[in-house]
């Protein structure tokens, strides 16, 4: 019985991806209930992935994988998708069965993707629940979009196949485009178009990269292999020469950097955020932007380690400029939502800095930062949405002194502000501090590992972002919460049945997020330990262990050493095993 359950659990990722999809289909089918029942069933369908992902967490941490399974990733499933080869029997192409394609519905998670999966599964139901009163038109279509978006996002984090990853990655655009364009604010059409065009332009380059990579694997292995694990091993073992990596990294980075967004590619984001409905903003900031950073962490850095090292200083400089520049932009915004949007760009600069420190601690902190940012920025967007529902304005000059009539709002706004500006014992501090530690120690050569690309010169300007972050967030709090009460005429609008202060539903949503923030701030090791392992196994394999950086002057005599290093980490064996 137990082993049966354990085997069943191995398919949990498929179930997690499929439930919201099934929910979306069922919502579209007759019998069509009223808005109320649509809302409730959408919420129910989005809660199932949450429960399933928590079960996955349980099995990930407290149950060992079934015998024979690889330990790097859990809950592996592989269903041939686009195959073919000399054998012509619909088996996956391999070294023995060359000439075809190895493209599969291939899912599996390590600690990095698992926690982003949980984040997605947590934020979506909360976002849906938050929209119970805000969304009054085309309720069914709205919830279908939300569920489709969730399915696509969950799919990205589970994918271990490059094509599958790309399909999910691109598919997220459609529901979000609709969410912004239909349920957005006054300028929703322009915002949706801009969002779509910008991100699509970037991912066209990524697609080109994927296609070239497929061709490249064909030319090296004799068949097209889009198994991400195999591609990583190829990249780490030096099977992809530097000049190829150089181009491929740029192609992948084009798509990911726009998603993150990395300065100066961020201009689509403030508009998209301001115009999106609250739930859309929450998912956009909370999860969708992480697709960019996740892409770097899962694909670009491990697959093209030499190019990543080569480009890291450039990325670092852009990240640092972005941190300061967008923080200054945030400071002068009048629109609260735009302020939070700019702050989001500023924060993700820290995340990029951590990832491109190319040190275990920095990358781990970068991953942790993704989760943090999802929680705190998501909550801030929710709060802005709750204010907007009552006052129909986001103008910082039109509202003020809300702490008096809305103590709960004040409590949560201050709480998440503190989380966002990195108060110790809350989650934000852990990410921020460890990112800076990672960046600062990037160049230190400890236990025989090569120097990383970043260093103190990046930390000092980036750390000013911490001051600026406090400046604009506290400025916003002061304007919105404190001082004499200021309300636009004929508000607060209670026609929708909303209470003056936050209601129980809203408090429950924010409390859930607040507990997560507090927990992650106090006991980050729960997550960080396992993420550290995954970073070592799946991200920084060669970049840290010295297979790549041999001074060119002596590399001729040191070939033996490189081979030694490669044997030590078992890259050749793994390359062989994946090739077969």
């Amino acid at each position, binding site marked *: 019985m137990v082993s049966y359950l354990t085997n069943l659990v191995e398919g949990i990722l498929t179930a997690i991806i499929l439930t919201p999809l099934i929910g979306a289909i069922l919502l579209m089918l007759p019998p069509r209930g009223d808005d109320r029942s649509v809302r409730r069933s959408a919420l129910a369908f989005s809660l199932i992935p949450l429960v399933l992902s928590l079960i996955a967490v349980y099995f990930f941490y407290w149950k060992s994988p079934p015998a024979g399974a690889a330990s790097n990733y859990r809950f592996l499933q592989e269903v041939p998708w686009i195959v073919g080869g000399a054998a012509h029997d619909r088996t996956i192409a391999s070294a023995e069965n060359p000439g075809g394609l190895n493209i599969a519905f291939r899912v599996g998670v390590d600690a990095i993707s698992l926690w982003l999966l949980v984040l997605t599964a947590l934020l979506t139901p909360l976002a849906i629940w938050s929209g119970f009163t805000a969304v009054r038109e085309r309720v069914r279509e709205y919830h279908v979009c939300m569920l489709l978006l969730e399915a696509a996002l969950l799919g990205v984090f589970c994918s271990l196949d490059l094509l599958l990853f790309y399909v999910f990655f691109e598919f997220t655009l459609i529901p979000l485009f609709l969410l912004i364009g239909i349920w957005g604010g006054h300028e929703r059409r322009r915002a949706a178009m801009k969002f779509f065009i910008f991100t699509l*332009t970037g991912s*066209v380059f990524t697609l080109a990269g994927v296609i070239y990579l497929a061709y490249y694997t064909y030319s090296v292995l004799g068949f097209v292999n889009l198994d991400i694990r195999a591609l990583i091993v190829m990249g780490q073992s030096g099977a992809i020469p530097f000049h190829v990596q150089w181009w491929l990294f740029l192609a992948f980075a084009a798509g990911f950097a726009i998603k993150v967004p990395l300065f100066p590619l961020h201009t689509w984001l403030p508009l998209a955020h301001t115009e999106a409905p609250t739930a859309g903003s929450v998912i956009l900031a909370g999860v969708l932007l992480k697709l960019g950073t996740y892409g770097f962490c899962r694909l670009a850095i491990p697959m093209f380690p030499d190019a990543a090292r080569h480009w890291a200083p450039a990325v670092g400089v852009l990240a640092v400029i972005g941190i300061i520049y967008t923080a200054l932009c945030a400071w002068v915004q009048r629109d609260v939502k735009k302020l939070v949007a700019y702050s989001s760009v500023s924060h993700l600069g820290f995340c990029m800095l951590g990832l491109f420190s190319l040190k275990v601690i920095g990358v781990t902190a970068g991953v942790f930062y993704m989760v943090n940012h999802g929680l705190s920025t998501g909550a801030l967007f929710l709060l802005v949405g709750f204010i907007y529902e009552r006052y129909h304005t986001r103008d910082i000059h039109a509202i003020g002194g809300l702490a008096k009539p809305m103590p709960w709002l004040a409590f949560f706004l201050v709480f998440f502000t503190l989380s966002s500006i990195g108060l110790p014992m809350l989650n934000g501090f852990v990410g921020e501090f460890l990112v800076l530690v990672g960046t*600062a120690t990037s160049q230190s050569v400890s236990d025989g590992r090569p120097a990383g690309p970043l260093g103190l010169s990046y*930390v000092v300007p980036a750390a000013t972002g911490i001051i600026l972050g406090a400046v604009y967030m506290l400025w916003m709090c002061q304007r919105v919460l404190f001082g004499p009460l200021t309300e636009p005429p004929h508000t607060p609008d209670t026609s929708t049945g909303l209470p003056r202060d936050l209601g129980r539903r809203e408090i429950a949503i924010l409390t859930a997020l607040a507990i997560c923030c507090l927990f992650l701030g106090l006991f980050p*090791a729960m997550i960080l330990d396992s993420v*550290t392992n995954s970073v070592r196994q799946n991200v920084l394999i060669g970049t840290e262990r010295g297979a790549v950086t041999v001074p060119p002057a002596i590399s001729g005599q040191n070939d033996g050493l490189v081979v030694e290093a490669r044997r030590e980490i078992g890259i050749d064996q793994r390359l062989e095993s994946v090739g077969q």
Partner: protein
Amino acid sequence: MNNSESLKYLGLLILLGPLLGAILAGALGPRVLRGATHWVSILGVATAFVGAILVFGAVRGFAPGVTGAIAPVYDWLPTGGSSYFRFEFLFDPLTAIMLLTVTGVSLLVVIYSRDYMREHDHPEQGYERFFAFLALFVASMCLLVLGGNFVMLYAGWELVGLCSYLLIGFYYSKPSAAAAAKKAFLVNRIGDFGFGLAILLIYLFFGTVDYSKVFEMARHGVIANGAPFTPELATTISLLLLCGACGKSAQIPLYVWLPDAMEGPTPVSALIHAATMVTAGIYMIARCGVIFVASPTAMTVVAIIGAATALFAATIALVQTDVKRILAYSTISQLGFMVLGLGVYAADSAIFHLFTHAFFKALLFLGAGSVMHAMSGVIDVRHFSGLRKVLPVTYATFLIGALALAGFPMLSGFFSKDVILHHALHVRPFLGFLGIVTAAFTAFYTFRMVFLTFHGPLKLPEGVHAHESGKWMLVPLVVLSVGAIGAGYLGVEALGSPLTRFISPVFESTFGAAAKHMELGEAAEHAGFWGEYGLMIASGAIAIAGILSAYVVYVRQPWIPGLVRASAMGLHRTLWNKYYVDEAYNDAIVEPLRQTGSVCVALDDYLIDGLLWFVTAIPRALGFLLRTMQTGLLHTYAVTMVAGVALIVLWITW
């Protein structure tokens, strides 16, 4: 070790007692406890106080030669691999003294607040919020002094900053209070920027953030990879740490937040902005002594900043009329004395002054609160006078505090200030001289405040029915005045100076060794009667002279101040406007930055966005081209298809 285990629980008790009080006050206060909310906070803080006494006992009981004990609690932040920034406590004499000071004064202030935060015996609005924040502050401050590594120090540092923010902004509907709270947080953030960088540097070069390991390496003059701990590195780290200390302990150039912080309720000013939180910077420098003394440059900077701040703030205090602001500038000035003490290698004296200052400054603030309570919130000396008749107990206790602050002989401030001046005159005579000038100013402005408030004809603000405060407020005042009189004797050499003797082992290998190395200790010991007592007599005389001149100017010949003001208009205006520092900061830093922000937004909206649209125009143009082909007419498609097939056939058969 069993000892470390029990110390761990003791530390947790000190943290969790007030924390639980805060949570209960916050959660149950508004609905259940209401007017009785103060009880949970008082109990929580009392728990911490009892814990602090136990810690004191435990530290006294350490075997000879053992200066401290580390008690790890859990692994907090993983730093890659299996190493962690741990959540751990350090127990040593410095921690014990700080804990006693913090929890002791806190307890009295919480008790005092029970009455102060009521109007006509009804809890003021936000009563439970106040007690929740106050208890949270005590927990955070205990975390700060208990922490066993730099990251924990930083955590406590930020958390006390948060509580300070919340409490300064307690009357948040007042725009000035909200602005002051934000200012306090942001100015402190600037300091934290330096502090944070210092921690990163320490981790980078020492490979750890644990006090014990870092200080051990620094003491032996090495860093993690065996390279020498160079004076340049020591200077960099020390100055960055000093930057943090300047923020929290309100030293030049980051002192500007403290006077504004007086927007908070008076008990908060007494506790956070006088007795405890603002001394965190002193604690930090004292704790990191080994790093500071490795860099003579840094020590010079510390001493100069301390002496300059002491004098600078004292001059401003000469002309202010708001009692709380006078006290705030006086706090800045006294903190300057402590920093000066650290800078002249007299860390034990600095901590001694910190200890006595906590008593008399808390006493003065609470006394001012009592006046404010009686005057229905008015605290400007221009609006009242002659209050000694209506507020006798307040007057008596306030007078004791003022005498202690002024350095009147045989009161606590006299002894502790004297030892600092003594060292300063030996090490850096000029700075010591500045310290003496400051002491004279201190005596003068303190008694200017006393005479204007309590002497002269009785004058009350309009519509105020003055009354002495109740027992809840007077008992803490009396207890503190006993401390203000007696605390100094713990450091008097003739009585064996139990306090300095208790604490000096901590500094023996840092400040002490450095001082010995510079042959400072020798000079002090062989100074003879006049060397030893001459200064004491002189500083006592200066204090009395300051008090007397204030008496002459403000009581006997009250026309003098007006004449002086009229004859030195420019100087008076400069002092009244606090040397225009706030304005300068605003014009030189804040406004340019905001304008840069506007420029950034303009760049974003026009230049960058325009460029990006231009780039994305290429695919769009392509799409436009292709769209013209998608006519929807079947025959065009057919023609195109035939043409295409023909081309392919041609190509194959070629």
